[in-house]
């Protein structure tokens, strides 16, 4: 049961939900709407891919929203105020965010601290740093931005698969391959099973921890760049609370919050479910957009309850054997 049943349930919820939406608003079932959904949630899909690695390894990364915010401000200032070529700015921020994640991973491992606390500190640090750079929204007018924003593949039915959506899909596929086909991916699961056992079995736990948080922050950096394409601006208050949407997407996607089980594909489906709810509310027009949060909350509860049930089921035969201490 390598994480499969929960993913199947997530897929079922997505398909059933989409069908319900389509019955009420037939226009939803169009490539146009799907294309927009992918574009709107591109940054979420990217950052959630990184979060999936972190959570499967038994950790959590609360800093991703702040890293996205910092990235948008940094990129906007670098291009608009400091006159840095966009590409150089992108490389600089990716190096910076990867280094930031690596530092958090190193602190978690070396001082044996809970990831929750370390990344919470990272969250405040990155958010504070972005305010330090600029407190107001900085519009980005570089030509590359309009080029990228205008680029799109035409889908049958008039839908547009935008550049940011393509980036997200590439990253999701790349993440899935990395997680399921490489030694690195196997070690991520191993860490989530038990750090001590993984270490006894020869996994370099320290290096892995650094790499996992580095990956998460790097993807948050990419998500930040994508976010700046999406909004054509840098703002220190952008992506506040996105870490929680991300965690929700990962959990709805069937990844166990305690680690050891999950998949990138599930996370992708979780992102789509959140996007679908958002789309439904937009179509309805009378509902407040906060209903997205309520629906997400209800789904989250349902999935956590489901996972607990599955875990309890899996543990039952083992519990019978225990209790035979001398």
């Amino acid at each position: 049961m390598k994480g499969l049943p929960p993913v199947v349930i997530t897929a079922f919820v997505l398909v059933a939900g989409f069908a319900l939406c389509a019955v009420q608003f037939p226009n939803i079932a169009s490539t146009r709407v799907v294309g927009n959904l992918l574009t709107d949630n591109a940054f979420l899909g990217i950052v959630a891919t990184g979060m999936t690695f972190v959570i499967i390894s038994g950790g959590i990364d609360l800093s991703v929203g702040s890293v996205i915010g910092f990235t948008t401000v940094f990129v906007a200032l670098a291009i608009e105020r400091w006159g840095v070529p966009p590409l150089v700015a992108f490389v600089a921020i990716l190096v910076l965010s990867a280094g930031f994640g690596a530092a958090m991973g190193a602190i978690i491992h070396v001082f044996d601290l809970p990831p929750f606390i370390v990344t919470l500190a990272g969250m405040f640090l990155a958010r504070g740093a972005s305010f330090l750079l600029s407190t107001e929204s900085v519009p980005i007018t570089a030509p590359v931005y309009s080029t990228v924003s205008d680029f799109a593949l035409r889908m049958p039915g008039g839908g547009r698969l935008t550049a940011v959506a393509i980036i997200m899909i590439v990253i999701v596929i790349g993440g899935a391959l990395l997680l399921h086909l490489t030694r690195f991916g196997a070690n991520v699961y191993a860490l989530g099973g038990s750090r001590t056992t993984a270490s006894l079995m020869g996994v370099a736990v320290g290096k892995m921890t650094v790499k996992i948080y580095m990956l998460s922050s790097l993807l948050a950096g990419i998500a930040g760049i994508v976010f700046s394409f999406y909004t054509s601006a840098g703002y220190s208050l952008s992506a506040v609370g996105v870490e929680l949407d991300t965690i929700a997407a990962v959990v709805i996607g069937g990844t166990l919050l305690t680690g050891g089980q999950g998949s990138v594909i599930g996370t992708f489906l979780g992102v789509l479910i959140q996007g679908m709810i958002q789309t439904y509310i937009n179509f309805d027009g009378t509902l407040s957009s906060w209903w997205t949060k309520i629906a997400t909350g209800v789904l989250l509860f349902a999935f956590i309850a489901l996972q607990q049930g599955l875990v309890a089921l899996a543990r039952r035969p083992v519990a019978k054997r225990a209790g035979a201490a001398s």
Partner: protein
Amino acid sequence: MENGLDPAPPLLEVRGISKSFGAVRALQEVDFTLRAGEIHALLGENGAGKSTLIKVVTGVFPRDAGIVRLGGEEVAPRSAKAALQVGIATVYQEVNLLPNLSVAQNLFLDRQPMRFGIVREGEMRRRAKTLLADFGLDIDVAAALGNYSVAIQHVTAIARAVDLSARVLILDEPTASLDRHEVEILFGIMRQLAKRGIGIVFVSHFLDQVYEISDRITVLRNGRLVGERETASLPRLDLIRMMLGRELAETTSVRASEGEHGAREVCASFENYGKAGYVAPFNLELRRGEVVGLAGLLGSGRTETARLVFGAERADGGQARVEGAPVRLQSPRDGVRHGFGYCPEERKTDGIVAELSVRENIVLALQAKRGLHRPLSRREQDEIAKRYVKMLDIRPPDPERPVGLLSGGNQQKVLLARWLATSPRLLVLDEPTRGIDVGAHAEIIRLIRELCDDGLALLVISSELDEIVTYSDRVVVLRDRAHVEELAGEAVDVGNILAAIAADSVTVALEAHT
């Protein structure tokens, strides 16, 4: 020694290993020799130093003194991983594998077959299949390890260790959670591995299994080497004597009161009391002013009996009575309510609260018994604490000192005081003298006698046979989770207890062969 006449050096040679934890000397000058292709049982009671020896040899604990040679060459692994690399692998009772990964991933974690940076899943599964086939397993290696039984997980762990070119395989209580059939499979694998020249260290407290599988036996006691013997030429009685370390004729009973116990008032009784798979149904009467000792080897059901009596474990049959009235003991709360007290063996984890003061530890059980809505005033607490500190001679006599700072003997006294404060009718003591220095032993024993003379009923577990005969009026002997004999009066002596433990295991062994 380079005259060429020496036989090949033994596979694993451990010489003069010592290890202390603070003031406690866990190992003193221990030697151990493992030859290639032999199955060598490492035996000893709880606290004898088996686990410490394994952990020192495999580098989990640094050693204070001594050397380890592997194939004649000195090795000093600094971690379990390093030990694995030189060829010493350990499989613990709780399997150290990852239940969330597939069997194949577990076998090849961090050394999967790769091509272009990608794990060759098919190749890995094929190899896993071949590897496990050597061990007589034909299972779906793509399924998560956690889906399989403990036996299969053990075999997987052994397969991984052997495939990592282990020359020495240490199996720490591998059979504790296996059923008879699974044990047979494991033994088959062990014999096969031994034939291939691997040296196997087998730690177990099941003597029948030791006699069935091992070529040689090394016994440790209290951190010292007692001796190494050929299994075939070591009678069971001698082995038990080595483990418990008592000479048959030496000890005589020095019990204080030899009263005609039939006349004493029964305070609690248990008829056909037991729990399937835990302790076979037993009859036990506990009388006022009487000490009943529970004797037997590790894993014989002593602690289990104590837990049933106290209510820490629920019986699935039989009847318990307190002062003649039938009662139900469903939880420790019930035990406390009926006036029972229980000092567990693991003082540090199950008994004292190290951060709290002596006073707070002493009033804990009494307060729990009274309930939250009837708090003890600070003055009452002080009085109680002062009384017991004086009565039991707890040192230093400072009720406000955190218990963690006291010596083992004094911690034990604080635990005793906790239960005495509830004015119990029955006290259950599990290894009350374990981990206490010798001077304090005598004091605890004196206390046990005194409490008994004050009219308390006591049920005491101990591995120290000469202690048990010193204070017990009756001794119940256990073996294989069943009460096999009850000795009373003149019959309580070390020789009879040993005979009861050994004699019974011989009959069982005979039964197993027919």
